[in-house]
C-alpha cells in the first residue's frame, strides 16, 4: 500500500538537498549552522543510545528493548519542537523524545531492566511514563490538554503513537474529544509501517493523516525521516494548539529498520528489499549530506559528535549496570496514595515470611 501522498511535507531530500515549501520552510528559518549541527548531533546520539539498548539486551542486562532505529528524525524533529511547558504522553519507543526532554539516559533503562515499572518522574521532564497499552495515552494527552486550556497555560500536550494504535478505539475517541473541546493537543503518529508483524495496510486503507478531516482538525503528512520537515510541522501544530486553535494530527512517515522489540524477528514477515529501500532514506545520512553540502561537517565537528555519542553511551551503560535490584517489600509501595489495610496486611505477612528464612539461617 502506498502511504505517501503528494501532500507529504519534505524540506530535505534523501540526498540532502533542501526543498522549498511555501509554508513550512519559514517555520525553520531561524536554524543557523550551529542549530543544524545540533540536530545532527541529536540524531547520532539517540541512534547510539538505541544501539546501546539493543547491545545491553543482547548481553543480558535488559529483559527487553524496543529499538527506534530509523525513527530518529521523527523523534528529534518533534522533540526539539517542544517547549519546556509542553507535556508529552509517549508510547514505549520514544527514547529520542525522552532524550530531548533531558531525561537522564540511565533512567530510561529501569523499565527495560525490570528494576521498576517506569523510568522517570513525569513532572521533572513534563513527560508521562511510557504507555504500553496501545493508544491509551492519546486520551491522556487530550485530558491534560484540557487542563492546560482551563489553566490558561500557553502550552500544549502531545501524544506519540504508532500506525498500529490508529486502529484502537482510544485514538479515535481521543481525536473526537480533542476536537469537541478544541483541546491544545497534538497527535503525533509515527507511521513506521509495521505493528509488530502487521503492515500498515492492515490498519489503514487511506493515509492516516486524512483521518483528521473526519474529526474536524487539520492533518499533515510529513516525511518522518526528514528532521527539518518534522521540526517545522510540529512547531506549526504546537503553536496553533498553544494559541487556542485546537488539535492537529501529524503523520510522520518513517520506517522501523529494526525489530519491534528484541524478542521479534522481522525476517519472518518483512518483504525482501524493503529494508534496503528505506536505508536509502536514512534520516542521519541525509542530514549529514546537508551539513557537508553547506560546509558544516568538518572533521573536528564530526569528532565532537562521535565523542558526545561515546560519552552518552558510556554514561548510560554505567548507569544501567548500577541500577540496584529493588528490595522485595518495595513491591508493596505506592499501590495506593492513602493507607490500604489489605496491602498493609499482605506486606506484613510477606515480611514475616521472609524473616522466617533469615531466622533459619
Amino acid at each position, binding site marked *: 500500500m502506498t502511504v505517501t501522498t503528494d501532500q507529504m511535507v519534505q524540506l530535505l531530500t534523501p540526498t540532502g538537498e533542501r526543498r522549498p515549501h511555501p509554508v513550512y520552510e519559514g517555520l525553520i528559518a531561524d536554524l543557523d549552522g550551529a542549530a543544524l549541527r545540533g540536530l545532527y548531533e541529536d540524531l547520532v546520539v539517540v541512534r547510539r543510545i538505541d544501539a546501546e539498548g539493543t547491545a545491553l539486551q543482547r548481553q543480558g542486562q535488559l529483559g527487553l528493548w524496543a529499538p527506534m532505529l530509523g525513527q530518529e528524525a521523527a523523534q528529534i524533529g518533534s522533540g526539539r519542537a517542544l517547549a519546556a511547558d509542553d507535556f508529552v504522553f509517549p508510547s514505549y519507543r520514544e527514547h529520542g523524545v525522552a532524550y530531548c526532554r533531558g531525561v537522564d539516559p540511565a533512567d530510561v533503562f529501569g523499565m527495560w531492566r525490570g528494576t521498576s515499572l517506569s523510568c522517570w518522574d513525569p513532572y521533572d521532564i513534563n513527560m508521562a*511514563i511510557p504507555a504500553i497499552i496501545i493508544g491509551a495515552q492519546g486520551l491522556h494527552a487530550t485530558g491534560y490538554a484540557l487542563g492546560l486550556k482551563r489553566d490558561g497555560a500557553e502550552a500544549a500536550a502531545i501524544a506519540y503513537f504508532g500506525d498500529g494504535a490508529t486502529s484502537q478505539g482510544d485514538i479515535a475517541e481521543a481525536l*473526537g474529544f480533542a476536537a469537541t*473541546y478544541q483541546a491544545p493537543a497534538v497527535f503525533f503518529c509515527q507511521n513506521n509501517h509495521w505493528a509488530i508483524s502487521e503492515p500498515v495496510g492492515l490498519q489503514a486503507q487511506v493515509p492516516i493523516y486524512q483521518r483528521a478531516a473526519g474529526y474536524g482538525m487539520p492533518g499533515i503528512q510529513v516525511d518522518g525521516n526528514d528532521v527539518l520537515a518534522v521540526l517545522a510541522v510540529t512547531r506549526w501544530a504546537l503553536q496553533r494548539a498553544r494559541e487556542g486553535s485546537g488539535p492537529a494530527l501529524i503523520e510522520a512517515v518513517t520506517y522501523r529498520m529494526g525489530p519491534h522489540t528484541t524478542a521479534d524477528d522481522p525476517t519472518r514477515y518483512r518483504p525482501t528489499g524493503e529494508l534496503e529501500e528505506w536505508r536509502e532514506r536514512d534520516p542521519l545520512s541525509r542530514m549529514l549530506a546537508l551539513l557537508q553540502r553547506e560546509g558544516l561537517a568538518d572533521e573536528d565537528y564530526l569528532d565532537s559528535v562521535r565523542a558526545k555519542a561515546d560519552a552518552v553511551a558510556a554514561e548510560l551503560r554505567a548507569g544501567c549496570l548500577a541500577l540496584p535490584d529493588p528490595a522485595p517489600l518495595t513491591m508493596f509501595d*505506592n*499501590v495506593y*496514595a492513602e493507607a490500604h489495610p489489605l496491602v498493609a496486611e499482605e506486606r506484613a505477612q510477606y515480611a514475616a515470611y521472609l524473616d522466617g528464612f533469615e531466622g533459619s539461617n
Partner: protein
Amino acid sequence: MATTRMSMAKALNAGLRKAMEDDPKVVLMGEDIGKLGGVFRITDGLQKDFGEDRVMDTPLAESGIIGTAVGLAFRGYRPVCEIQFDGFIYPAFDQIVSQVAKLHYRSRGNVKMPLTIRVPFGGGIGAVEHHSESPEAYFAHTAGLRVVSCADADDAYGMLQQAIASDDPVLFFEPKRLYQHKGEVDLDRALTAREPLHQARIARSGTDLTVAAYGPVVGTALAAAEAAAEEGVSIEVVDLRTLSPLDFDTLEQSVLRTGRLVVTHEAAVFMGMGAEIAARITERCFYHLEAPVLRVGGFHLPYPASKLEEHHLPDLDRLLHATDRVLAY
C-alpha cells in the same frame, strides 16, 4: 443537629455541589450530565451554576470519558466521571484497570489519580438489558482501585464527598433503585466528623447471626431482620459500605459476637464479593463459626429480562431462607 429530609438522588446532588464549592479542581464529566442533569438528575442544575467547563457533557464514549479524566488528573484536577449505567462501564474497563488503577504504582507514586467514577448500579427498576448490572467485583479485584457503595441518603451525601477528596481513584457504586428513597441528611456535619469512607457500620444490632450487605440490599437485610425479630431471631446487619478495602475488622467483630454469617448482594454469587468475604471470615473466625457462611445473591446468568428480575434479585424470603439454614446447624 439539624437534618434535612431528602432523596438519595438529591443528597448526591448536594454532595457534588459541596465538593465543587470546596475545591475548584473538581470537574464533572459524563454523558447528558449538563442541561439534562443526567438521566437520573444527579447533576441537576450544576452546569447552570458552575459552567460548562466544570460540568462537561461528553461525547458518547466511556473509554474517552475515563481516559480524558486521567489526563486531567495528570494536570492536577479531580475529575468526577459519571458512567450512565452499570452495563456501560465495560468500554472503559481498560482505562480503569490498566491506567487509572496502576498509574500511581507504575509512576512510583509520582502521579496521583484522584478520580471518582460514579456508577448507578443494580436492578429492580424494570429496565432493559445492560441497565441493571452489578459489576463491582471486577473493580474490587483490581489493586489500585477503591470501591464503595452507599445505602442511604446521608451516607450518599457524605461518602461521595469523601470519595472525591480521596487521592486514590474510587469506584462509587450508587444503588439506583434507592435514588428516590428519602432519608434524613445532615448537610452541616464536617467530613471529618463522619464515619471514615472505608469503615463498615452496624446498621442494626443483633445476637443470633450477622447479615452482611451493601448498597441496594442493605434495606432488604434490615427488613429481613425486622421480620426475623417477630419470630424471636435477632439478626445483626452490617452495612459494608466499602468493598475495597473491605472492613473485615468490623465484620469479624460482629461474627465473633453472633457466630453466624450470611452475605447478600445482587451480583452473581459465583466469584463474587460474598466468596471473598466467606473465605476471609472463615480464616479469621474458624473456631467461632457455628455454621458455614452462606451467600444469597444473583445467579450465574446474564441479568434476565425485567419480568424475571424478582427471581434473580435476593429478596426478603430468599434471605430468610438462608438465615433459617444457618440457624439450623
